């Protein structure tokens, strides 16, 4: 059992318009996640500390936040890898609602805008559509997305231009554009050819670094750009 300091960005507009830093000393065991330490604060030190979480092992995407200045899932980063003093802030670029909890609606609006669903024409087959293992592998990486918003809110373009679709929406478009069963590529590419679309990307790679699922986000964005230029998917 050792002690670490959590320095947390607090904000509750019901109490004050101003955000502030608050530090908590938290006992941790080896192997504890940051989420365990946040729970310790909430459960035993200050019940008003507010953040989202659910699965606690990196699959539901609820608890993305800025940890020591970079986006992480609180449940997928271990205290021992973060040092003795850990700063925790809400994601940047989305409105903070309370403490570490941000408004996700702008993020989901961008997701919905790229038509994130399989588009096909004609009658569906009786059995499954056939797809070769190679065709299936083509878009495997982007099927891993858990919509945690770590990539989009790590993007400096997004911080300064909230009309930009952001990396996650492009990842989702990629997942369908490169699915051999899908027939909506043209439609999605047209959406992403917008001035707030893929061309905003300046390949900073922040998104790739931030992705807790290890998706090659920047690569996916470049593949969508290339599909726009060379018209093949």
């Amino acid at each position, binding site marked *: 059992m050792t002690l670490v300091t959590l320095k947390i960005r607090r904000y*509750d*507009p*019901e*109490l004050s318009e101003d955000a502030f830093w608050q530090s908590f000393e938290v006992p941790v065991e080896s*192997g504890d*996640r940051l989420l365990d330490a946040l*729970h310790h604060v*909430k*459960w*035993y030190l*200050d*019940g*008003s500390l*507010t*953040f*989202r*979480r*659910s*699965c*606690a*092992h*990196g*699959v*539901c*995407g*609820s608890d993305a936040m800025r940890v020591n200045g970079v986006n992480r899932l609180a449940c*997928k980063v*271990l205290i021992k890898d973060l040092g003795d003093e850990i700063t925790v802030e809400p994601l940047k670029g989305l409105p903070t*609602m*309370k403490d570490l*909890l941000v408004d*996700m609606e702008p993020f*989901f609006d961008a*997701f*919905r805008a790229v*038509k*994130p*669903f*399989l588009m096909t024409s004609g009658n*569906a*087959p009786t*059995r*499954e*559509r*056939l*797809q*070769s*293992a190679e065709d*299936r592998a083509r*878009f*495997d990486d982007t*099927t*891993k*997305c*858990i*919509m945690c918003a770590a990539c989009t809110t790590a993007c400096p373009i997004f911080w300064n231009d909230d009309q930009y679709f952001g990396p996650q929406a492009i990842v989702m478009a990629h997942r*369908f554009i490169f*699915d051999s*069963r*899908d027939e909506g590529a043209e439609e999605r590419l047209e959406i992403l050819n917008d001035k707030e679309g893929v061309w905003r990307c300046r390949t900073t790679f922040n998104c790739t670094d931030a992705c807790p699922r290890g998706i090659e986000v920047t690569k996916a964005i470049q593949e969508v750009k290339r599909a726009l230029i060379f018209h093949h998917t």
Partner: protein
Amino acid sequence: MVQFHTYDTVIVGAGGAGMRAALEAGQRSRTAVLTKLYPTRSHTGAAQGGMCAALANVEEDNWEWHTFDTVKGGDYLVDQDAAEVMCREAIDAVLDLEKMGLPFDRTPEGRIDQRRFGGHTRNHGEAAVRRSCFAADRTGHLILQTLFQQCVKHGIEFYNEFYVLDLLLNGGRTAGVVAYELATGELHVFQAKSVLFATGGFGKVFKVTSNAHTLTGDGMGIVFRRGIPLEDMEFYQFHPTGIWKMGILLTEGARGEGGILRNSDGERFMERYAPTLKDLAPRDLVSRAIYTEIRAGRGCGSARDHVYLDLTHLPPEQLDAKLPDITEFARTYLGIEPYTDPIPIQPTAHYAMGGIPTDIDARVLRNSTEVVPGLFAAGEVACVSVHGANRLGTNSLLDINVFGRRGGLAAAAHANSQVHHVELPDDPAGQVEALLQRLRDGGGQENVAAIRTALQETMDAHASVYRTDATLRQAEADIRALQVRYEKVGVSDRGQRYNTELLEAVELGFLLDLAQVLVVSALARHESRGGHFREDFPTRDDVHFMRHTMAYREGTDVRLDHKPVVQTRYQPSERTY
């Protein structure tokens, strides 16, 4: 300020079952989905290994074998008519998901690939069969994503972070629900002709669990407080392979791909317990075997309190392709490299076989024979019963798709058959207002987390894999004492905005109620069947206990009644593997 809304169909919960239901109901009736999370945060997304259906894409199979496995796996407590429906409709359920865009792994011929899973066999137990349709080890994630994508496509209306806290009945008919809006602290009354609960399980009554923090049995707790019974709550599944101490799930697909369980001697001990299926025996058998090994001193580590899941003999390429997520869990949380080192595991609380009793159209039963008009339930919250005393792996993803679909259709059909809504009862939000007021003003002499931890510890110690009359009585007494302490909890956050502290206090109330139902139901079942093992009654007793438990709330007590098991073609026989 209470706000009022009117819909034909209201669905509570946006996991697999809720969204599958919404896709049907939303295209046929004016539908709202209320969820305390965001749709893709549900624990369906944590399911890994696959969804079984007798597609016979890679070897001979048929749905009748699947039905038999389900019935035998459930230790014959399964309602066989329901299991037939599920296993027959499994094939279309998988094909429907593929057509919605789910990226299943593929065979060399381009068909949906299939792999082995615990308890699923060829020709009534001859050998393991490849029946599980999968997408690497994130099948649940992709089911959830695919269903959400379809909901977006069809414009399904979601109320995100709306926590439903009460069911409104009038004259025994469904009138609507009351929800608490997390963002504002406001109450909302949703009047609806049909209400479908799809709120999942209550794994958080246990300490070591694969379940999300948010799985607090809300739907079961709500209807139970409104006088509706809960069925077979003593049957709780412990998944054999949770990460040691943490409980994080490591899919049975790991053993389906060839993984082996080993004790401290390095022995493949499952050969002694299940000579035919070995490591792929059903979960109740494997979990008991693990604890038997540990009790015999053959556990691993300095405390000898776990065993190993050994994947080291499998090629790294196979682990990367078929089990990428769980191998990453081992690296992230344990610092272990599964290519070269075995993974320490222990059984982890995983799945409620019991729940809100329903028929095969997800209609909720108010007793052993009558339905509650307009009320439906599907998924883990419900007990159809297709899982009986022990659920087979993959059958939960199947359950949510088959009965989510059937429930959505039935809910919309009911709504469309009613000209008028059932009138709301007087002061519809009154009960919820009183509950929240009490928790806000409770004084706070007691701490929610402390009570929850104490509950989880007594449940782990006294009501898990092995049970006796004495341990269950201890658990019952502990829960009673904790319920008294719960009366004195209070929340320190006085705000209206995103008051998640208040939410946790409400959730604890449901956990305490459901733990009590589980323990009281388990005390009365003087036999061992499936996931319910009584050391003082170690054998199955079909003469006295081939029946479902029906638990009703009576004041602060639980009253038990029974419901017959539906048997069609399979007679109970000894359950060996």
